[in-house]
């Protein structure tokens, strides 16, 4: 039933001796919202640049809409990539950007763009280089949404956007996606803010995929257990622990894996507190220093 929009197999990208993307397998399905998550320098932008044909891979296979994306116009016209720091020609105004956008995006909706301009209170006639950081981000967000490209990438689109503007972005994204389903890849650090918008989560660390899983499967997949050290140790004895902390006789351990009713009851009997782990906390555990020595470790989704 699902159609694959993009597929990578053993994808590699090197810059000199630095391997930015280290043999990644990846599939993007039609009509889904993906979260591409990971720390700075993990390889998120590089993957998006490869998928949008801006750079060539050094190895592996890559197909977007059935073809290698680089230099294939019929693939590229179905893509939209909103970069973290999008550059525009000197002396351009937002009005120029919105006027030229339909030349590149066949599904461009000018009325929707106009509504977004009002939502974000974007001054259309001001020169781009005079815009604030947040207004500049709004230009990118408007282009990304109104282009309605079948495969749209937002690379940290919110820089300088205040909380209200970010909420407008999320709400408009959801509304428009519901009316016009398409594949959206959202790369962001504000994981808790977008967690509920995502259908699928791809976590990158050091050029490799650490987690590739439906957001629903990730949610509640880890729990933090806290209480007297001895009780905590007894409870987590045969479970996969992905994080530990201790203060005096108290300890907390984060375990990977769902707890059933019997587990919860046992924890209560041992006098332990259970706390859910948010997607953001889970990612901190998975990509934090604790795993620094074990990048090869398999992470069960």
């Amino acid at each position: 039933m699902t159609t694959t929009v993009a597929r990578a197999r053993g994808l590699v990208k090197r810059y000199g001796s630095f391997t930015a993307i280290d043999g990644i397998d990846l599939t993007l399905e039609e009509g889904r919202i993906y979260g591409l998550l990971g720390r700075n320098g993990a390889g998120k932008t590089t993957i998006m640049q490869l998928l949008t044909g801006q750079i060539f891979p050094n190895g592996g296979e890559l197909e977007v809409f059935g073809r290698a994306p680089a230099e294939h116009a019929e693939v590229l016209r179905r893509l939209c990539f909103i970069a973290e720091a999008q550059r525009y020609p000197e002396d351009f105004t937002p009005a120029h950007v919105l006027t030229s956008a339909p030349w590149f995006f066949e599904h461009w909706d000018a009325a929707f763009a106009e509504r977004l301009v009002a939502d974000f209170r974007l001054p259309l006639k001001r020169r781009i280089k005079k815009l604030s950081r947040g207004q500049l981000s709004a230009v990118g967000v408007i282009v990304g949404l109104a282009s309605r490209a079948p495969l749209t990438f937002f690379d940290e689109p919110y820089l300088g956007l205040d909380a209200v503007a970010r909420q407008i972005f999320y709400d408009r994204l959801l509304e428009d996606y519901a009316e016009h389903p398409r594949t959206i890849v959202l790369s962001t650090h504000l994981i808790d803010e977008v967690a509920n918008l995502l259908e699928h989560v791809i976590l990158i660390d050091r050029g490799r995929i650490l987690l590739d899983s439906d957001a629903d499967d990730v949610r509640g997949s880890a729990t933090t257990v806290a209480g007297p050290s001895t009780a905590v140790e007894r409870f987590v004895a045969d479970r996969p622990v992905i994080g530990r902390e201790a203060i005096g006789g108290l300890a907390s351990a984060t375990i990977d894996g769902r707890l059933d009713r019997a587990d919860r009851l046992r924890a209560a009997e041992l006098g332990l507190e259970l706390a859910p782990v948010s997607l953001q906390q889970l990612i901190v555990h998975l990509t934090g220093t604790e795993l620094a020595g074990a990048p090869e470790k398999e992470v069960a989704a």
Partner: protein
Amino acid sequence: MDDSRPIFVQIAEQIENDIIDGAVAEDAAIPSINELAAFHRINPATALKGVNRLVEQGIVAKRRGVGMFVVPGARARLIERRRDEFAADYLRPLITEAAKLGIGIDELAGMLREERILS
């Protein structure tokens, strides 16, 4: 939405609660997938998954072209199921905590009665 359980489960439970307390009557329509997604600010696929869970359980059913409706008899079935889960979900944690504090069953029963008068 809390982080401890999948969102689609929470969506299904919320609709169940609306049916149990009568906010959504039997034979009435439940909100559309897009309405649920926009209201809860969640992915529409997640909202659909929640509603489908209720379809599988025979709580709501699709009427072609008009939407999802609460099946007659759904409320009684939901209440029956919640009663079955009541002991495990509420009583056992209560008894465990009471035991930890040295509250005996008789004292606990007295406290419950008093709480009921107060509320």
